[in-house]
């Protein structure tokens, strides 16, 4: 698990586990995502996608070599499913992040496409720009 490039620590380090082509967040009773009205704010969802993307970039992108940290530099063409905020989150749910690393890079920046799935249904989709820093 490549945590070292994420500038986040608890409680903002949200991704639990690396998965094939992405990462997984598992919701537990008492966890930060199950407080309040138990809906997932879109900004939170984008943040989770970005953290998942950084894991993959750490492993695949050349510009990550030598970088000590990576940031989310931009978001475009985001699509939010209405069920993201209308269907309550429950303990035991898994959020699966799939990241396509096929988009290209330039300098210290890279563009990727990320999708968050819940029970196989897309919740949030967005193009993400990651910036490597040192």
């Amino acid at each position: 698990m490549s945590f070292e490039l994420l500038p986040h620590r608890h409680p903002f380090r949200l991704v639990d586990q690396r998965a094939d082509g992405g990462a997984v967040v598992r919701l537990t009773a008492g966890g930060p995502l199950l407080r309040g009205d138990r809906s997932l704010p879109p900004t939170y969802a984008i943040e989770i996608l970005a953290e998942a993307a950084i894991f993959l970039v750490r492993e695949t992108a050349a510009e990550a070599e030598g970088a000590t940290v990576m940031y989310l530099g931009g978001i475009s063409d985001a699509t939010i499913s209405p069920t993201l905020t209308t269907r309550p989150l429950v303990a035991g749910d898994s959020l699966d992040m799939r990241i396509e690393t096929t988009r290209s890079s330039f300098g210290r920046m890279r563009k990727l496409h990320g999708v968050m799935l819940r029970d196989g249904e897309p919740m949030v989709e967005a193009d993400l720009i990651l910036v490597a820093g040192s």
Partner: protein
Amino acid sequence: MSQDNSELKAQIKQLIVERLKLDDIEPGDIGDAQPLFGEDGLGLDSIDALELVLGLEQDFGVRVEDEEVGATVLASVDALTQFVTERRTI
């Protein structure tokens, strides 16, 4: 050749406006030699540079290898046109 060039320049200006979502600028408003970056020019930033590089790959099959090449190639529509003419595969 000059006719081909003007068509390509128009395509590149179209790409800049569409790809970077420059809603208040028409492709024809961009001067051939106008700097694309910086306050004296079109005012593009580094995120725009990434989008532009991806657009060039997608539309013309040309790859801007690194930031050093990008500094020359992305300077203006004239510079982009020359680069695409030399390298295009689509």
